[in-house]
């Protein structure tokens, strides 16, 4: 029953988020600030993780392909498929649930605890539109982060494969181009948009409706990470079933 209430309040939150808009000039500033906090601020960790995970995928593939019949170009092919289909869109989103999601929950939760949300409401401002809408718009730029993750991941794989002596540049790039299906990119970016919406709204809901003090802000951040990850995994399965099977 409590879960049904939570689902109901989540959808009511979404309804209010898209109603009674904040003054346009203020909203524009808020959106730019959120893009800076949530997107630009995440680029460093995304580049770091993508580069090294791409490298690890290439090395592990190479170490498991010791049959001489299997061409070395498979390393590039496997790296590309792993990164485009799963690592960049799904696992990078889960990593972002930890970074961006916790940030959203704790910042909104702290505002709840210190009555800043009440202050907005008393002033006649739709606090959900003011706080959540700019985050949703900012995270619609999340696919750019994922595109960067794909590029850096494959580059990491290429460098690790070639300079680690596991494959040649020619073999790796041949594998990258082998049987390329552009719909896989479409699928990856559709997933990314859905995950971005989850990343913006679920942590916001956790923060906005939390009750209590500083300790509860910490608990809400943890819950936020758990539920955002669960929903990303669940929707990953549903979207994959719908688009690829």
């Amino acid at each position, binding site marked *: 029953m409590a879960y049904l209430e939570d689902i109901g309040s989540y959808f009511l939150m979404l309804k209010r988020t898209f109603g009674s808009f*904040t003054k346009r000039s*203020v909203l524009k500033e808020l959106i730019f600030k959120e893009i800076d906090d949530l997107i630009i601020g995440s680029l460093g960790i995304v580049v770091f993780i993508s580069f090294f995970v791409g490298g690890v995928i290439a090395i592990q593939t190479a170490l498991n392909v010791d049959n001489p019949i299997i061409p070395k170009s498979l390393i590039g092919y496997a790296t590309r498929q792993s990164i485009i289909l799963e690592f960049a869109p799904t696992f990078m989103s889960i990593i972002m649930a930890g970074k961006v999601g916790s940030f959203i929950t704790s910042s909104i939760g*702290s505002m709840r605890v210190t*009555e*800043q949300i*009440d202050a907005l409401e*008393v002033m*006649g*401002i739709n606090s959900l539109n003011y706080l959540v809408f700019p985050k949703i718009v900012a995270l619609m730029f999340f696919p750019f982060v994922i595109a960067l993750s794909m590029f850096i991941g494959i580059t990491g794989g290429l460098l690790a494969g070639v300079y680690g002596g596991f494959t040649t540049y020619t073999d790796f790039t041949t594998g990258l181009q082998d049987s390329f299906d552009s719909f896989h990119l479409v699928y990856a970016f559709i997933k990314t948009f859905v995950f971005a919406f989850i990343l913006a709204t679920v942590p916001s809901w956790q923060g906005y409706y939390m009750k209590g003090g500083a300790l509860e802000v910490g608990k809400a951040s943890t819950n936020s990470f758990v539920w955002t990850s669960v929903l990303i995994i669940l929707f990953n399965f549903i979207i994959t079933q719908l688009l690829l099977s």
Partner: protein
Amino acid sequence: MITVENIKKRFGDEEILKGISTVFEKGKTNLIIGQSGSGKTVMLKCLLGLFKPEEGLIYYENEAIQNMDDEQQRNLREEIGMLFQGGALFDSMTIEENVMFPLRMFSRQKKSEMLERVNEVLERVNLGGVNKKYPSEISGGMQKRVSIARAIVNKPKYLFCDEPNSGLDPKTATVIDNLIQEITHENDITTVVVTHDMNSVMEIGENIVFLKNGVLVWQGSNKEIFSTDNQDVTDFVYSSDLFKKIRDIQIKEQ
């Protein structure tokens, strides 16, 4: 003027406000006092429209807040200033941005005009020169004064204060009390202060509403509160040793 007619508010099975009727007068500092758990803050949140009472009506001038549509409620809220217990300043903004916030949201003034008004109200609360600081960089008393500045920057008709003195030393508390009263008289606004601080009652209590267990048990001024024979009020007033001693001295002198 705010008129409250028989408001009742419950949370689950517990009735917090049990049919309160009163009038908060214009140009006066109206105080809601009572022990913790008496329903003061719930009443304040009902007045602000943050809680919806199950029964009863709250009139701002002659218009009941419950009968207003969303647009009317938004317009009303632009006429309300609120001082929260903890200040509720936006910690990602500087003092200047905090005070300017209501102007940016609701006025069409140029930035230079807004800045002029911000400096004017900051001077009014004796806080010049802190414009570029963040709330975390100033003291609790200063935060309260910034919060007052933010509450009055839009020239509100109604000012609400929730425990304005909590966490402040007696001297700073008196400064805040006097500031609230001066602003009320200068601008001829309706001010409602929730407090359980007897010093505030003595200093600024022009119209006092005393709540006990969600019921209004007494109403009067700070001059009348020390002479009332209402047992609940005297128990509350003389629960402080200081006031007990003052009373004993007065009795001895008589």
